[in-house]
């Protein structure tokens, strides 16, 4: 509903951004859940090999899905700032975004380290498509 004194365009924009935030956040959650399900399946399939190194490429794949999901979640955080929340809300948003950014940073480092380990061992990556615009080591 339009509040008195607030222009209709602002109300409309707030509704659009709220919807966009929900869609982008849901996309991030979907990517993370799909990545986790794929990784769980691959982990179970790798169990009979009894080889600890066999789990590393699967963890790399999971890491890439998580990084992509985090990008979506960070995008939704940025979108939220467009609707001018309260100061307390903005502080909490900043905290969530900081946690996600830190996770993204450490995830990228872990992926790079694991990739180096695989290269040293001469192992192949799994046949799943690479996700994440940053490509994890290109």
């Amino acid at each position: 509903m339009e509040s008195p004194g607030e222009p209709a365009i602002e109300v409309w924009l707030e509704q659009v951004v709220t919807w966009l935030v929900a869609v982008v956040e849901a996309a991030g959650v979907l990517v993370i859940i799909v990545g986790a399900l794929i990784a769980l399946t691959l982990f179970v399939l790798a169990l009979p090999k009894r080889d600890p190194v066999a789990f590393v490429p699967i963890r790399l794949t999971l890491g890439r899905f998580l990084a992509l999901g985090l990008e979506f979640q960070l995008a939704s955080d940025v979108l939220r700032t467009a609707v001018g929340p309260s100061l307390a809300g903005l502080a909490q948003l900043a905290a969530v975004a900081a946690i996600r950014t830190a996770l993204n940073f450490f995830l990228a480092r872990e992926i790079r380290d694991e990739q180096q380990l695989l290269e040293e061992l001469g192992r192949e990556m799994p046949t799943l498509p690479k996700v994440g615009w940053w490509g994890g080591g290109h």
Partner: protein
Amino acid sequence: MVGTEGVAGPLAGLVDAAASLLALAGVLLAVAIWVSARDLRAALAVLLDLLLVVGLLRLGLLRTWTDLLVAAALVAVRRVVWFGLAQRSHHPAPAAPDPRR
């Protein structure tokens, strides 16, 4: 709060349920890896990865500052454990002395 408005309403319940299931799957899988591969480090790494998935999913459902602090603490704990694992893998245990000497 702002952080809860993305995954709102009925989706929040679904995400929470999915996170709980993934946490359970992570624990079971870690035990299975430990039993089959006899490698505690691999099992712990997989468990930490799946707990990270759970943390990421729950990050969108946070309600209070306490939730946020707990999430940040969990990220820090995960990093410390991961750092410990990485150090151990870079510095393997010294080889056993040659019995012929």
